[in-house]
């Protein structure tokens, strides 16, 4: 059920380019006109807005500030873009199912990015709603040290429209030293400033949430605001390939959650 996230932060503004063409020609897919819908939560309901109809082969870029009031807040509601055939009612209690066949090698993706002055950064992305009973463990090697501001970006979406509260605990992985605990919200783009913690070049920040999953990113912004850098970090399953790698992930998470719990 891929949605395409449209992000925003107080530091850089978000854009997403949606494509009505598949990334490959050999997986089952729907070649037809598709309508782009924006879906965002007010905390109790999903609100929907019809945007455009894209012809086969077309693409269109959407800007967060044109669709939603930009808040001066470290957490901002995520906008989800969806390609649809049938219309949506104006409010929903749960995210709608997909209506088209999409590819998997690779996933059908959008260009999801941030703008600042004349610079852009993006990744090829999509988001599927995370289950409520899920967690996050990720190691963060992206901190840069010369004339740069460093941030941790955490995005989440769930089927229900609640702004569910959770927290992200920050540790330094070498020492397992507890650094901070930051409140985060479901169905939001959450921004955490990292320079306040004084991580050194050999430190490895580790971020955990015991009650919420999501996609973690490193965001770097040059002090002169001329360049941005955005990349997601991997879940622990990425340390392994083949076999039962999600059992590997479960074991890694269990160990780190236990270790870090004791140090809090």
């Amino acid at each position, binding site marked *: 059920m891929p949605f395409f996230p449209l992000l925003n932060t107080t530091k850089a503004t978000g854009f997403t*380019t949606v494509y009505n*063409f598949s*990334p*490959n*020609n*050999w997986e*089952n897919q729907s070649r037809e006109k598709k309508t782009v819908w924006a879906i965002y939560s007010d905390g109790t309901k999903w609100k929907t807005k019809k945007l455009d109809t894209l012809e086969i082969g077309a*693409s269109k870029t959407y800007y967060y500030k044109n669709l939603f009031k930009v808040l001066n807040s470290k957490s901002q509601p995520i906008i989800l873009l969806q390609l649809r055939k049938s219309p949506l009612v104006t409010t929903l209690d749960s995210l709608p199912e997909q209506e088209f066949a999409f590819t998997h*090698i690779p996933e*059908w*993706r*959008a*260009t999801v990015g941030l703008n600042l002055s*004349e*610079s*852009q950064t*993006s*990744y*090829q992305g999509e988001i599927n709603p995370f289950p409520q009973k899920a967690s996050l463990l990720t190691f963060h*090697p*992206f901190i*840069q040290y*010369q*004339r*740069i501001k460093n941030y941790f970006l955490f995005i989440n979406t769930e089927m229900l429209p609640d702004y569910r509260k959770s927290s992200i605990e920050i540790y330094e*992985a*070498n020492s*397992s030293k507890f650094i901070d605990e930051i409140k985060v919200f479901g169905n939001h783009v959450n921004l955490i400033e990292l320079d306040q913690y004084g991580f050194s*070049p*050999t*430190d*490895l920040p580790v971020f955990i949430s015991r009650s919420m999953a999501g996609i973690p990113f*490193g965001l*770097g912004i*040059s002090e*002169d605001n*001329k*360049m*941005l*850098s955005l*990349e997601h970090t*991997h879940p*622990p399953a*990425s*340390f*392994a*390939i*083949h*076999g*039962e*790698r999600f*059992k*590997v992930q479960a*074991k*890694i998470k269990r*160990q*780190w959650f*236990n*270790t*870090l719990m004791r140090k809090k």
Partner: protein
Amino acid sequence: MKQLIKNFIKKNIPSRYIEFITSKGITLTKIPKGIAVISDLFVLRVEEQWETYFECLQFQSLLNAEVNEHTNRVQFVFYNQKGDYIDEKQVKVEATLKTTLNVNKIAAGLGIEKDGLFAVFHPYKENYLNKFNSYLAERGYVGYANKKRGSIKGFVHGNLDAIAKCHYNSGYQLLGNYSFLEKEFFLQHDLNPANTYELYLVNPTNKTQKFLILEKNKKDQNTIRFSLPPRGSYKYVRTVDKGEKKYNIIIKSKLYLARPLVFKIMPKAFDVFHG
């Protein structure tokens, strides 16, 4: 049992045969023939004032939070654009969980002055990954910098689980699967005016592969054809001038996922990401 059967099929029947039965059985990466550690084939940029950095993490410690166990060295292996092995080096890493390595310096020490590819192999160690029939995989993170192009590093993760280093004979095995049939990969990213795009393609298979890049917009259409030997890499450059229409890129080959690494060079900054 189901997992065992799946593993047996993955290990013994190439995806290009399974594809005739179902596309759902296709896997991008072969299972190594024996005990091995795996690496991506990362793009090394050293020409035109590019710098390449590698964020080396201590996997053994990350896999075992309760054990303070560090690797002293990791192995870097370099290949030129034709896929030829150039050289390798055991690189010392700190006894900390993260070491930022300047790959340009490592490459320069081996006399490498051209762009190419590199792999990073951690020492093999028996652990619970064996129990789950999994293999340790280095997927990066690579940081690219260029003071002429932008003031900070752009980071990108690995793209391919491309190459295995066998534990017993220290030989290498390329892991990329390919088809009997030509496939098209459509880059879901518009090449917009006023930017230059540099796309790197890699051949992670054990066979020379033919590629065709089709660049098209509403007015023009051009094709570029080339062959890439195993471990080879190719740089495609397209500048889209102000006033030109945006371009889209289609890559034809027998790879299931001919996904390039994309550098987007803007007037005062750059960005890097996977297609």
